[in-house]
C-alpha cells in the first residue's frame, strides 16, 4: 500500500491535491482513500492531508501514522527539522522550493529528495495570485515523476476533471513540473509487475 502525506497551508490546494491523487489512482483501477487531517481547515493555517492507494481493498482507516512519502506544498516547512519525523525510511520528500535537492537533502538522512519551484511555476501559469499561488497542480506533476504510481496522462486527466478553474493551465503546469522537477535519486516503479 502506498501511503502519502501532504503538508501545506490553507489556500494552496492541499486537499484538492490529495483528492486528485486518489482520482488518478482510481482511474487506473486502484483502491483509494483521501482525507484531511481531521480538524478545522482555514486559509493560511498549516494543513495536512493523507492518501492511501493500494491494489487490494483498503481496510485501514484514520490518520496515516507512518507515511511512505511526503509532498510539501509550503516552502517554509523546509526549515522544520521534524518535517520527515514519521515518514518511512527511503521515502521521497517532494518539496516546493527554489533550492536544488542537493542543497537540503542532507537534512533528511535516509530519504530521497525532489525539488520544484512550484510558486514560480504556478505564477507563470497564472494559477492563483503572485502572493498566494495555487501550487497543487505543479506539485502533483513533480510528485508523479518521483513516485510514478500512475501514468502522467492519467494524472493530467484527473487534474482536468477536478480543477475548480483553468483546467488547461493546471494541466500545462503539471506537465512542466513533471519535466522540470529535479530528482536527487532515481525514480523507481511503485508497483511490482503483476
Amino acid at each position, binding site marked *: 500500500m502506498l501511503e502519502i502525506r501532504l503538508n501545506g497551508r490553507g489556500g494552496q490546494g492541499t486537499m484538492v491535491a490529495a483528492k486528485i491523487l*486518489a482520482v488518478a489512482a482510481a482511474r487506473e483501477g486502484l*483502491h483509494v*482513500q483521501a482525507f*484531511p487531517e481531521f480538524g478545522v481547515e482555514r486559509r493560511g493555517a498549516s494543513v495536512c492531508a493523507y492518501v492511501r492507494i493500494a491494489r487490494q481493498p483498503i*481496510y485501514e*482507516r484514520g490518520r496515516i501514522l507512518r507515511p511512505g512519502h511526503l509532498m510539501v506544498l509550503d516552502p517554509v516547512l523546509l526549515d522544520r527539522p521534524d518535517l520527515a519525523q514519521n515518514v518511512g525510511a527511503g521515502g521521497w520528500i517532494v518539496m516546493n522550493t527554489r533550492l536544488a535537492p542537493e542543497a537540503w537533502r542532507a537534512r533528511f538522512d535516509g530519504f530521497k529528495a525532489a525539488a520544484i519551484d512550484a510558486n514560480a511555476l504556478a505564477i507563470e501559469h497564472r494559477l492563483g495570485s503572485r502572493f498566494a499561488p495555487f501550487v497543487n497542480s505543479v506539485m502533483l506533476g513533480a510528485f508523479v515523476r518521483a513516485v510514478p504510481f500512475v501514468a502522467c496522462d492519467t494524472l493530467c486527466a484527473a487534474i482536468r476533471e477536478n480543477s475548480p478553474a483553468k483546467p488547461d493551465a493546471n494541466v500545462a503546469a503539471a506537465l512542466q513540473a513533471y519535466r522540470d522537477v529535479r530528482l536527487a535519486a532515481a525514480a523507481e516503479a511503485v508497483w511490482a509487475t503483476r
Partner: protein
Amino acid sequence: MAGPATAPQTEVMMGNHALSHGALRSRVQVIAAYPITPQTQVVELLSEMCASGRLAAEYIKVESEHSAMAACIGAAAAGARSFTATSSQGLALMHELLHWAAGSRLPVVMGNINRAMGPPWNIWDDQTDSLAQRDTGWMQIYCADNQEVLDSVPIAFRVAERVMLPCMIVLDAFILSHTAEIVDVRSQAAVDAFLPPYAPRWRLDVADPRTFGALTEPEPYYRLRFMLEGAMQEALTHFDEAHADFAAACGRRYDALAGNARAAVDRLREEGLAAGLLRIRLFRPFPVARLRALATRARRLCVLDRNISFGAGGIFAQEIRSALYGLPGAPEIRGHVAGLGGAEVTTDMFCDMARETARASSCADLVVWKGLRDAPQHSA
C-alpha cells in the same frame, strides 16, 4: 471528464456527499436542514442540487435543528418523502421531535454524522450522540464505508415507508464524512425499481381532514406503543428483503466488513489466533436472533464501543450482553471503550484488544478503557 455511458459510474467522493447522492437517487421531495460541522457538506451539496434543478425537491431553510425536524415531520405527514442530516448537538436539539416523528409513524430519513457531545467542545468521532437517541423509536443503521452510506439511503426509505417508522443513517465524523473513496453512483433506473414513490395510507389532506397525534387515553396509547414495537420487529424482515432486492438490482451485498477491525482480523489470523469479525450494521431494530445464531461460534467476544453510557459502560457491549443472556454456550463478553472524541483507534489497538480478550483470566470488568494515556487518578 465525463466518460461514455457504458463506463462504470464510479466517483471518488466523501461520505457526506455519498449521503447527498443517496438522497438524490431516492428522489426526496422535501429537505429541511441546519448546517453543523462535520455534516455541513451534506446539505451544501443538496442545496446546490435543488438550486440547479438536478433534484426536484423543496429545500427549506430553517433556524435550528428543532425546526428542521419539525419541517420534515410536517412534510412527511403531508405525504412528501423527507430528508435531513445533522450531528451531535444538532441531534440533541431535535430530541423532542425524534419522539414525535416516530410516534406519528412518519418515515423521515436522517443522516447523522457521529460527533462527540460537548462540553468540552469537540467536533470529532464519537457515537454517543446517536446512541443517546436509542429509545426514540427511530431505526438506526451504522455504516462502514461510503458506498454503504449512499446505498443505505434508498434502503432506509424503503423499509421506513413499509413499516412507517423513521430511520437514521449513521456515519463516523471525518473517518467517513470527510474521507474520499470510490463510490458507485448506480443508475437512477435501478433505484427507481427498488424504491417506489412514497404513498402513505393516511396523510394531511384538507379534502379528507383527520386528527393526528391528539390527546390519547392510556389504553389506546398503550396499544399504539405495542404496534410501534411490532413495526420495529417487522422491520428486521423488511431489511433482509431490502438488502436482497438491492443486491439483485445493484449487485452489492451488505454483509461486507470493513475498517481497522477487518485489517486486525487478517493480521491475527496470520499470527495463528482464530479471530473473526462481527459488525453490527443495524442497531435499531437490534438483530437479536441473528446475533444469537452467530455468537456461539466464538468462545469470547471482544466488543469495541466508541461511546459510553456513563455508569454502565459501552452501549454496544450492553446490548450484546442483553441479547445473549441465557443463551446456552454463549461467549464471554469483554467490553472496551476507545476513541471517544475522535481519539485514534488503530489496527494495532484492535489486535491488542483481541489478544488480551483471548488471554484474560476473566471477562468480569464492566469496561476496559483502551488508548487512555496518563489515566487520571482522581475523578473531580
